[in-house]
């Protein structure tokens, strides 16, 4: 087991660096570089001056030279600074990461808590009116693009009802208590979880449907076990295994945030940071973000495997 984990950890390191290489090359391939914008504001600028500045920033070196320069800094523990925000990357990232995880993590939690009971109900009452109705409601959630449902939610909850602020992060009101802060989370969490509840519910439903057709359920039934025991001990437990794995697999994606939701709700999260860094050719920032992604993704994948092994005894046989 430990050896296996160790092996997997070792495997992820080259993967992480592969990702950074790809990202770096892609960014360099895209036309334009950070110099363009700064120099634009100077009507007196000459092409020679632009070239000189590019040389200062090392922008005219070959891609691999630039990459290894970046890499050597990173290995020394220096992520560099953001050319977009003009500050050290380490002063931006942790805060953004925390904001995003709070938002996406909470949404995942909410949607799972809602989706699992509904999914179970739908599976038990397959093809009933309620099943269709629940599916329909769930699909309403999927069908509305977030930029649309987000605005509707803001209108309803903050304009008409006045319950929650129309977007923003609780840090704009220092000294807020728990409930005060929670109000800021309501709308974005609602929208995000509404969006994903549908798919979780569908997963739960089909997973359970699949399990109850397995032979061991038939056996249990044949043994004359009471229905409740069959459902809870045999069906549900097994049906939850793939869901748990899926959740673990989803966690790394949480780090990426949700760009559109973050924009609609003015949430200072990773999604917007990535978007801005990519759109503005902030190489160092983008690279730092992807590096952190890589590391966290690897970490969570390992955790997922451990969790899976823990839940499903069959895995341990390997």
């Amino acid at each position, binding site marked *: 087991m430990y050896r296996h984990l160790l092996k997997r950890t070792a495997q992820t390191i080259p993967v992480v660096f592969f990702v950074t290489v790809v990202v770096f090359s892609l960014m360099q391939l895209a036309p334009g570089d950070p110099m363009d914008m700064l120099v*634009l504001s100077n009507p007196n600028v000459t092409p020679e001056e632009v070239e000189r500045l590019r040389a200062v920033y090392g922008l005219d070196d070959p891609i691999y030279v630039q990459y290894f320069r970046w890499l050597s800094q990173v290995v020394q523990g220096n992520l560099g600074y953001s050319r977009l925000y003009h500050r050290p990357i380490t002063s931006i990232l942790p805060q953004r990461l925390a904001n995003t995880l709070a938002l996406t993590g909470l949404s995942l939690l909410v949607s799972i808590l809602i989706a699992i009971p509904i999914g179970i109900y739908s599976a038990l009452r397959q093809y009933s009116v309620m099943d269709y109705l629940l599916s329909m409601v769930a699909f309403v959630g999927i069908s509305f693009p977030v930029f649309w449902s987000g*605005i509707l939610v803001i209108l309803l909850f903050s304009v008409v009802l006045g319950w929650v602020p129309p*977007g923003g992060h609780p840090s704009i009101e220092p000294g807020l208590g728990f409930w005060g802060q929670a109000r800021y989370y309501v709308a974005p969490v609602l929208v995000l979880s509404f969006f994903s509840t549908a798919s979780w519910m569908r997963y739960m439903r089909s997973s359970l449907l699949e399990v109850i057709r397995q032979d061991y359920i038939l056996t249990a039934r044949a043994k004359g076990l009471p229905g409740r025991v069959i459902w809870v001990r045999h069906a549900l437990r097994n049906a939850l295994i793939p869901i748990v794995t899926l959740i673990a697999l989803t966690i790394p994606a949480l780090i990426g945030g949700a760009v559109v939701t973050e924009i609609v709700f003015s949430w200072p999260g990773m999604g917007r940071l990535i978007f801005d860094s990519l759109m503005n050719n902030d190489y160092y920032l983008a690279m730092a973000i992807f590096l952190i992604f890589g590391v966290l993704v690897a970490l969570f994948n390992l955790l997922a495997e451990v969790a899976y092994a823990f839940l499903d005894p069959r895995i341990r046989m390997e």
Partner: protein
Amino acid sequence: MAARGKSPRGIRPSLHPGGLRCDSVTYSRYAPSSRLVRRAQEQSRCSRDFHHGLPGHGDRQYTAASPLGQEGSQELKISTLRPVFRLSLLTAFACVAAPGCGGHPDLPIPEPDKTLVIGVSQEPDALFGIVGNLMVSGDVGSFIWRPLLLIDSRRRPYCVLCTELPSLENGLLKVDEEKGLMEATFQLRRGLQWADGTEINAYDAAFAWELMSDEQYPHGASYMEPVGDVEALDSHTIRVVYKTLWPFGNSDLRLRLIPERYYRPIWEQYRSEGGAYWDRFLADERVSVYPRANGPFQVREWVSGSHILLVRNPSYNLGPPPSLERILVRVIPDLNALAIAVSTRQVHLTDGWLTLEQARELEEAPGIEIRYVDAAWLEHATLQINHPPFDDLRVRQALLLAVDRAGINHAIFRGKQPPAHSWVHPGHPAHNPGLPRYGYDPERAQGLLEQAGWSREGDGPLRNARGEPMRLTLITIAGDRTRLQVVSVLQALWQELGIQVEIRPESARLLFPDTLQKQNLQPGGVAVWRWVVQPEATVSAYGLWWPRGTNLDQLTSGSPWDAVQENKDLIRQALGTIDDEERYSLLRRQQEVWVRELPTLPLYWHVRVVSIDQRLTGYVPSPDQYLGWGVDEWRFGAASFLPPNGSGVFLAAGFRSTIAASRHRRTGKPSLLNPESPNGAD
């Protein structure tokens, strides 16, 4: 202090500590705070409090009772009323996403404490006075920095840190016409302070120059051209040496001061480390995030992606301390969300972000005033005029004649963004009102095209003598809705002439540096974008009138326009003419040439939508100025003077007077102004 009002009022002496006479009510800030007294303060419209004599209490906040307190208590009742709740739900769906609907009359309005909330949809890049590319950096920076001089709403320069503007009469401006040299001397006011309490002196100006003329200066050392040197003659005398005659030598808005005592050690440290030292210097949080400056406010907290909290600068002594205690700049990237925040009165001031459609809906919202302010942003179409088919004047004229600019204004801009007839804004004294105009005349356009050798059979494509069809590619900024609308109209109208038109949206980052400057605007390419004309209004619009060997050189060199000697002569003369009137008359003549030759197609002038909460008074949006230059005059939380429901009437009147009073352009930061704002913030 920054007078933003109708006239530059020079500098007021610093104020005395203690109580203050104001509207014939004398009170001390720390008088017994009975509710009545506080209400009186609010109503006296003199909420400026002076606390110099009371150190340590500077940041204490007013806890004035809200004039809206009653509405606050109503809120409780409402939330307990079930039917009302249901009704509200219905309204939610009846007026989805309509910010105008947002002004729920019974909605609790957040208690107006002294925190003014300003909404922006883009985050500033840096707040260090001499670096920054975005308009928003200039807007936020204008609360933090006070430069040597500024311009008022009539576009006239006035001294902020200096005692008087140099002129030939007072001998502070010296011109050597023969050698083509000049120098200006500025005397600094004494006793002015940086945020750390140290005195502002002439060495700070020399230090700023040192930073800006450094070869690694991010905007390019040539940014300060034609300044040759800025030196400190003594602790309060600054001399600026120009290498050529420069009409704005006595009022160079680019001149800055940076506190040398604080920043030099930091600067020297990075410099000694070598490499890209300027960039790393700028990435130091003491520089770009929490700058030590001299404005009425300073940055208390900047949460990236969320907000910037500005608090009073206790050392500010350029004028009396502002009445506002704190300013919260909130970054709200989604414009619909921004409009909703405005309509619910959680954001009290926005300037230049909301769209005209949103403005229309907010006009009906109670408690919010919407103004439309002329901006010196010229929307125009850049063509490759040194290449067929645009090298033919008749083709360019035909293209412009075929555009129903008045119709666009009516349909898309609600009549607010009028067609442009010159590259100089009608509000500028150098504008030539007698210029010939290109109205909507498709038949004449067709005729001109025929003269130029382009004809069509029936509804077929327009072809030249060799049978080649005319193909255009309209290039504009991806994701910019308004521009895409305009471009769609251009496409439709030009297609009616038989021209094949394709639209190519491009990212803002690429349009200017890549497409326009590096020969990627293929023949037949038409780029539609915005030019921010500087307040000096003469020498910045290179691409529009002067092939200068820089930015847009590739579009014009070798073209017939390039060969127009009259234009070159007029420009050269204007650049060397220090007398304003004389220069303006040269520019008026130059505009005649420009309109005749049409090197680019002028489309329309932008307006900025400004939303002001009624509780905020004293903010006068002005075309040329940054948001915070007049913050000393602002009051927040006073009872409103506009009738809650009849604001529309006021608005209409207010709008006209705004337009009339301020037909000028707004600049980018005079230092860092620029063509297209890079991030599509425009």
